[in-house]
């Protein structure tokens, strides 16, 4: 091995990449995104030279290249057809979903040729793009901003998602992070992140409600904060309801006022974007003003539009009422009355609308907490969680599934396997049997949602259980296990109980990107792919090596008397060799040293097992033996 030997104090591995490897928290929003980092429990939002924290979630595909943020948003005025806004609304969505919001999206979507579902694609400036790729551009810009502020490379992040995001949208978010060269440490639900920011800052205790109305999504969660535990009791929301919808209603109102311009047909064009820009401006101005006047210049025909706050409120009233209905349902799910809520937290730019604030306060009979900027609170919470995950913390987030998980049964009905608001991680097993003699395969269709009919829920995945051993109808017992991890992501495994045949389940996500597609995109983004993969593998090898040293050191302390002096020295030698490789950056030599260490301690391990089994025979537990021995040392 070449290179210099690093010298460090005995018994202490140096901690390379300590500061240089700081993980960040990212709020990847529909309208705006931002990034924050935390040190010693203090979160700080990253700002540009002009003090702005928000990066508009806007991507422009221009001839001179791809631009993101404020610069991209300015292009809406000149080259609207090259600009993508609100792409978050399309994450993990299929064409069928998009039809629900058809005409509300200011860009063209591609209809998949084979009609086979799959994630929707956008047609922008002559390119066909998946929402994942567009989101990756936003994340790249955010990453660059964080790197500039911190002065080192950023490769790991906690990313927030709406609590109500389904499995497909969560996977899409993780895919986007991968494309941008970021490892997702954890997906955290936005309201939970907000509660974390408040709870840790204020050392709060009791029941909290978080009402989160962003640009494109609405979430409401009820949490219990107690001794550093953030326990989500219930959550609910609407993934397609947000401030964008307020803008759309106002834009339609403006367009109706213009004679001869039908409100809906125009909304797929440049004109729609202009109307939306005016509408947003009007909405924002009416937060502080009682009325105002705006001009829309479409096709050289300018028109003036007056709007007062009362009219705005009448327009958006049905949407606000819907969020309040959902809020009441979530309170009922949590088994909590509004009076029991100790604190109400408002999150998201749309909670700046006075009517929203007023109506939510009415439901809870109290004024909301507003010491943290509602547009920054989620990123701050994410940063705190990133620090907790990488540096350790006493705080604990216990979240729940936002939607029920079910499977399709006879007649297109949905049978619930895991009800909504189940604490995660969670696992549920369900037994299936065959209905024909000798049947060797069966289809399983997993859906997410609260409705009785499969067709009214969201299709998550279909997969075939193949290789069932031939048996009489009803004799096979196939156990399918659905596991939801802390990120809210589903994995499925299956085994046949009578024969013990274990089935590999290939889940084909209904609206995701296939592994092939993701791999192709990764290859395409040459700048990151290889370097990121190497960095990640090196980190994994290091984790493995450090664990090995710790394990052997502990074993020597407890069972060292099983070795003679020479044996002990030999083991110390392989451990020291491993320690030396960890100081370097060569993954291969770390892995080799781990292997050597494994082989060198094999005999030691079997003597330790013998001792453990002898102790168990005498009725002592291993723990007792270990304790008495370590006491002697």
């Amino acid at each position, binding site marked *: 091995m070449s290179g210099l030997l690093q010298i460090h104090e005995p018994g202490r591995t140096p901690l390379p990449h300590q500061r240089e490897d700081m993980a960040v928290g990212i709020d990847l929003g529909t309208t705006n995104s931002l990034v924050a980092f935390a040190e010693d429990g203090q979160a700080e939002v990253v700002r540009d030279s002009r003090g702005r924290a928000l990066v508009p979630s806007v991507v422009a595909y221009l001839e001179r290249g791809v631009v993101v943020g404020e610069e991209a948003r300015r292009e809406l005025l000149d080259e609207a057809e090259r600009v993508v806004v609100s792409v978050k609304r399309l994450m993990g969505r299929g064409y069928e979903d998009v039809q629900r919001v058809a005409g509300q999206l200011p860009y063209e979507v591609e209809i998949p040729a084979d009609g086979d579902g799959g994630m929707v694609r956008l047609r922008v400036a002559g390119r066909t793009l998946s929402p994942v790729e567009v989101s990756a551009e936003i994340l790249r810009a955010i990453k660059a901003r964080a790197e500039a502020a911190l002065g080192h490379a950023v490769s790991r992040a906690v990313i927030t998602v709406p609590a109500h995001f389904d499995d497909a949208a969560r996977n899409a978010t993780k895919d986007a992070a991968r494309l941008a060269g970021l490892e997702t440490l954890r997906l955290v639900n936005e309201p939970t992140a907000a509660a974390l920011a408040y709870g840790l800052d204020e050392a709060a205790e009791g029941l909290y409600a978080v009402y989160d109305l962003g640009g494109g999504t609405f979430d409401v969660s009820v949490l219990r904060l107690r001794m550093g535990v953030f326990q989500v009791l219930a959550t609910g929301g609407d993934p397609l309801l947000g401030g964008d919808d307020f803008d759309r209603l106002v834009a339609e109102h403006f367009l109706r006022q213009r004679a001869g311009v039908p409100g809906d047909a125009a909304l797929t064009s440049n004109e729609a974007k202009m109307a939306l820009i005016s509408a947003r401006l009007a909405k924002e101005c009416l937060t502080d003003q009682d009325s105002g006047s705006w001009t829309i210049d479409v096709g050289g025909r300018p028109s003036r539009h007056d709007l007062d706050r009362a009219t705005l409120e009448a327009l958006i009233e049905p949407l606000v009422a819907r969020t309040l209905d959902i809020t009441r349902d979530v309170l009922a799910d949590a088994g909590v009355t509004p009076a029991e809520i100790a604190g109400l937290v408002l999150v998201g730019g749309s909670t700046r609308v006075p009517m929203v604030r007023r109506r939510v306060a009415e439901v809870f009979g109290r004024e909301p907490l507003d010491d943290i900027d509602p547009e920054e609170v989620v990123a701050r919470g994410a940063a705190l969680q990133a620090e907790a995950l990488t540096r350790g913390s*006493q705080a604990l987030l216990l979240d729940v599934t936002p939607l029920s998980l079910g499977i399709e049964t006879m007649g297109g009905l949905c049978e619930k396997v895991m009800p909504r608001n189940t604490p995660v991680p969670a696992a549920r097993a369900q037994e299936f049997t065959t209905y024909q003699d000798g049947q060797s395969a069966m289809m399983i269709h997993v859906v997410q949602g609260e409705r009785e009919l499969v067709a009214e829920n969201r299709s998550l995945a279909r997969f075939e259980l193949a290789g069932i051993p031939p048996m009489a109808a009803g004799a096979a017992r196939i156990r399918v296990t659905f596991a939801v991890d802390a990120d809210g992501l589903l994995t499925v495994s299956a085994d046949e109980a009578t024969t013990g045949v274990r089935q590999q389940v290939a889940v084909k996500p209904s609206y995701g990107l296939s592994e092939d597609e993701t791999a192709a995109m990764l290859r395409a983004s040459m700048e990151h792919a290889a370097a990121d993969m190497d960095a990640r593998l090196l980190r994994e090898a290091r984790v493995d090596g450090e664990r090995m040293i710790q394990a052997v050191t502990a074993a020597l302390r407890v069972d060292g008397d099983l070795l003679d002096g020479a044996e002990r020295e030999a083991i110390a030698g392989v451990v020291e060799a491993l320690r030396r490789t960890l100081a370097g950056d060569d993954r291969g030599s770390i892995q080799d040293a781990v292997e050597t260490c494994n082989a060198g301690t094999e005999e030691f391990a079997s003597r330790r*097992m013998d001792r453990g089994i002898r102790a168990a025979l005498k009725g002592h537990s291993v723990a007792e033996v270990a304790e008495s021995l370590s006491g002697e040392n």
Partner: protein
Amino acid sequence: MNASDNAVSRCWSCHGPVNRGAAFCPTCSAIQPPHACDPFRTLGLAPGFDIDSADLEQRYFARQRELHPDRFAANSPREREYASRHTANLNDAFAMLRTPVKRAEALLAAAGHATGTGETDTVADEELLVEAMEMREGLAEARSRSAVDAVVAAQEAKTDACIAALSRAFAAEDRAAAARLVLRLTYLQKFATEARERRGRLTAA
């Protein structure tokens, strides 16, 4: 030899002996894969109907702090997966033990006694049916939040009495009586949910 083979397994990390069922290796502290375990043992309790809910919750949080996958974010994928499986078991066990109905069902199932919530014997208890109907009527007639609250208060007293009776039945090991009481408690709780929903609607109005 067989018994001890089962009692001791090998730690995947330091290759030393670990008692079966232990979540962590006594030597190197590595997290171990979970084994199937009844909900009482998962939370470190002796099986029994009487449970102090504050103590149960403290045990749950304490175990979560040890086992939640977020505690293993910097560890290997294998350790994260074990943590995830442990926590899934823990969540299950807590959900089962925190509600009297499920706790009683778990005890009856462990004793090999079928519970009365199956389809066959739901109509056996006529007294129960009459009582359920009366409660529903009372609720349907309640037109204000305070009227609903009064109905709920009466029902809560019945729930408390039912749980006390269930505790006595388990103490006397009278499983048939316990099974009947579980069914009654199920009805009472279903009713509580309906009452809460009705109250919610009245609040909204």
